[in-house]
């Protein structure tokens, strides 16, 4: 569990970072090398970029394959399936990622 948390919270190398595009081949100049940085970018990045990547399944793939967090990946996939768009997309992405970050960073509570 600790291993998967630290993997999800780590800083990745620039080759593995997430690069925000607005359409095919059009790079915004913004990237995220960690989940923390990803959350910060979500707040301000061009809406077109959020919708472009959600539709292409890029967010869920990066989070599952690079950060190894299948749970967060599933949460984002559900946003795609629900066809969330516009400001609601930005708000809900921010919500699910910030909530997951709190869980990953918080103390482990014994049941």
């Amino acid at each position, binding site marked *: 569990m600790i291993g998967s948390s630290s993997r999800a919270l780590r800083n990745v190398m620039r080759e593995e970072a997430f690069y925000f595009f607005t359409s095919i*081949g059009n790079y915004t100049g913004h990237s995220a090398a960690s989940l923390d940085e990803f959350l910060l970018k979500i707040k301000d990045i061009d809406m077109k970029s959020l919708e472009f990547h959600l539709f292409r399944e890029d967010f869920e793939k990066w989070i599952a394959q690079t950060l190894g967090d299948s749970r967060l990946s599933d949460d984002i996939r559900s946003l795609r399936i629900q066809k969330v768009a516009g400001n609601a997309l930005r708000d809900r992405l921010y919500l699910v990622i910030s909530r997951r970050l709190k869980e990953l960073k918080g103390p482990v509570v014994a049941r």
Partner: protein
Amino acid sequence: MKYKSQHATLDDLDRQILRLLQGDAKQTYSEIGNKLNVAHSTVYDRIQKMEQSGFITKYEAMVDTEKMGIPLIMAQMIITTDPKETENIAKKMTMYDQVLEVATSFSEELVITAKVVSKDQAELHSFVARSIAPLLGVLRIRTAIVTKKYKEERFGIKPRKE
């Protein structure tokens, strides 16, 4: 015809030969000689010298990939870079097979322009996202996919007007 000086010059006959070769590089020395009213040995001699002096860099076949059933899309990229990294980025880009041309260009700022080919849009995006965007110093990329070509020629050598 002065080939050895620093600023080597070509005379009208050289230029005429080059122009004919640019139109069809498979022509024989005799065919070129007949068109220019010179001996085939003169044509041979001139071509040899222009090859050795680097005026003729290579002969290549232009292949119709569409006819071969190889679907390719072409894209033009404009990459805005940190000026300190521009040359490094341009050199790294030359190493990719997908990149056909790379140049540094100046408009309001120094940018890299590149012509890129790819199998489809998904592969193009993957290439840009995984290979170009992560290069140190890349600030922004604009990519335009070519939808229709209206002209594609190389610069044609013309006899000098005097």
